[in-house]
């Protein structure tokens, strides 16, 4: 499955990219994170504290155990600070 990944705030800065396309066999968001962590240190650093990571799949907030089936875009970012 091919997914569009988008990153925001310090997640984007640590990974060094605003977005990328990845092929994955991961079934859940956390499986995808495991795959990314193994790629390079900058991903391991970005995902070193999962309590500080929020996820949206196809622009909807989800938990880390959310399934990826049928998903096109996954966004990773820190807790939001609007207002």
């Amino acid at each position, binding site marked *: 499955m091919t997914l569009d990944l988008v990153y925001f*705030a*310090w997640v984007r800065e640590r990974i060094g990219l605003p977005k990328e396309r990845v092929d994955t066999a991961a079934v859940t968001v956390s499986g995808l994170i495991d795959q990314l962590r193994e790629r390079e240190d900058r991903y391991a650093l970005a995902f070193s504290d999962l309590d500080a990571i929020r996820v949206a799949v196809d622009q909807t907030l989800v938990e880390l155990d959310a399934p990826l089936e049928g998903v096109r875009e996954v966004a990773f*970012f820190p807790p939001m600070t609007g207002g």
Partner: protein
Amino acid sequence: MTVRVEAEPFDLALELATFGQGAGAIVTFTGLVRDLPEGGLVYMEVEHYPAMTTQALEAIEAEARTRWPLSDCLIIHRFGRLVPGAQIMMVATAAPHRQAAFQAAEFLMDYLKSRAPFWKKEVTASGENWVESAIKDEDALKRW
């Protein structure tokens, strides 16, 4: 019922000139860029997730409308580089009575804080710092 996400400044008086006509109560809140306690903030960079932001704000607004009898509702949130004192965002609520208008405005603000995809970075002469979310902001949602 309006949601706008934009870089440009907004004019509060202009926005309210036609807002909530016929309502008994209108409440408005405006958020401004605060300088650091020690001073020295050059600007704040507000980043957002364009594909998600508007629909997230509309969902928050729709939830508010199920809870209070709002005749009108306005959310404006800016992004980009904002200097100290600049307006970041505003909400306005219109209802028959003040209690609904006040409560709905507080509800909108509480959800905007931690459920709308915005992130703030403070930039000073000596460096940059991403604003961290506050535990109190997450706790604030529990009262609703």
